[in-house]
């Protein structure tokens, strides 16, 4: 049951992931994604009725922290990651709204 991913889907996934792929990259990605879907199909053959969906890999619940300020001024470290900055803020291309 080989999955086939259409050109439109490849285009759409590219937009969502903000990736611009060359023709060759796109073909490789398509093959990879098709294999993944085939694998999911394989998993779907299993009967999992009555099995709760797993949302966390460890059997741990309720990990909380108290509402106490533990961090000081982090701006120096944060801004060290900025490719461009002004007045201690990240400069990004203009956004609307």
């Amino acid at each position: 049951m080989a999955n086939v991913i259409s050109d439109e889907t490849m285009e759409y996934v590219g937009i969502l992931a903000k990736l611009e792929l060359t023709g060759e990259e796109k073909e490789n990605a398509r093959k990879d994604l098709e294999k993944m879907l085939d694998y999911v199909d394989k998993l779907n053959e299993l009967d999992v009725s009555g099995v709760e969906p797993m949302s966390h890999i460890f059997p741990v619940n309720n990990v909380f922290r108290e509402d106490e300020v533990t961090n000081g001024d982090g701006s120096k470290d944060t801004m060290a990651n900025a490719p461009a900055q002004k007045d201690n803020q990240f400069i990004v291309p203009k956004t609307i709204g």
Partner: protein
Amino acid sequence: MAKEYETVIGLEVHVELATKTKIFCGCSTAFGGAPNTHTCPVCTGMPGSLPVLNKKVLEYAVAVGLATNCDITRYSKFDRKNYFYPDNPQNYQISQLYLPICRNGHVDIDTAGGKKQIRIHEIHMEEDAGKLIHDEWNDTSLVDYNRSGVPLIEIVSEPDMRSADEVIAYLEKLRMTIQYLGASDCKLNEGSMRADVNLSVREVGSQKLGTRTEMKNINSFKAIQHAIEGERQRQIEELEEGREVIQETRRWDDNKESSRPMRSKEDAQDYRYFPDPDLTPIVISDEFLAKIKSQEPEMQDAKIARYQKEFDLPEYDAQIITSVKKMADFFEDTVALGANPKKVSNWLMGETMRLQKEKGMDQDQIPFSPENLASLIALTEDGSINSSVAKEVFEQVFADDVDPKQYVEEHGLKSMNDEGALRGIVEEKIAANPKAVEDYRGGKKKAIGAIVGQVMKETKGKADPGTVNKLIKEILG
């Protein structure tokens, strides 16, 4: 005959929770910090950082859920909502899609037609985004992540509202409830409460919902009113002219008083949610629920009833005083100091609210202490000062929280009740006003007002008007 239309409205209300720290890290949520000073690897989405849920966020969310009659989800978890935008450094927002913390609630609102129930579909916990500012000079945008990771709850209603009035009543109800719980200050104008309005129209009698639009960026009750009326008209015009309403997100522009569609690129509604593997599931125990329930404060309706019963306050007063939680707290604190409840209510509803309005302050800003109001009331009750002096002193209490007793002494404002001291001045003024005396004796009882006025003037308002009146009548026989 023209068709009649009905407006169908549902709300998504974001409320910023009043925690000291962010939802998943120990950064401060304090307002007004210099850009990016309240940031760390967690709230700026650095690879390898580990978010841990702030317990207080869960407690507030459950408290709001209980107060709005929701079922609390006993097994809840967080999901990632994926999208790219510069205010979102992780490229996903941590939110709850599959198992939100609260579901199936409702609140009752008062409408022109009586009580109405507005159902709540769900309440979920999530994180706020950073702030983008447009840099006019360079035509770029600047990002400050101080707000990134500030805890929010989103309260999603069912499409149960039919008018702007109902929407406002619903928002007021939520605001009051949440303020009473102390979970948020819910200020629309400061963004700690934000409403997105989902609106559609349909012909009266139709059961089918029309195509809805979502309006964002509405930050005052007035704007909500205008946005709802404007969007209703726009949709009706589309339908009347044979066009279709397009499902889209529209941005409300408060200055232009109109909405326009947001760019479709911003609006790609494919968020590919999946469970967040960094955060553990939340299991709510009976003990946890019982604890939150036991902490629920007395809510407004209960206070209104109690104020009437316990303090003999008129219902009108009780309603006004309790409409702001801080005002109600202040009232109770002042009464606890022994002040007469009706007098306290009068000072709060009268002079306090007048001065707040005059100075452009919010009703929860009471700039003086219950002790000083109680002391001022005591001075009026034992006759130490008369009512016009009391107003003057109150202005000082309001402005600088002065100790009224000390202020009255320092400025020599004590009432002159001493008949001996007043008698001389009264006699002098009677002698200086033969015309008023003659009129009074001729039957015009009001004529002595002129003499009272002159005595008050002479004593700089400190004379007790009652005593002065009594003396004049006594002397004139």
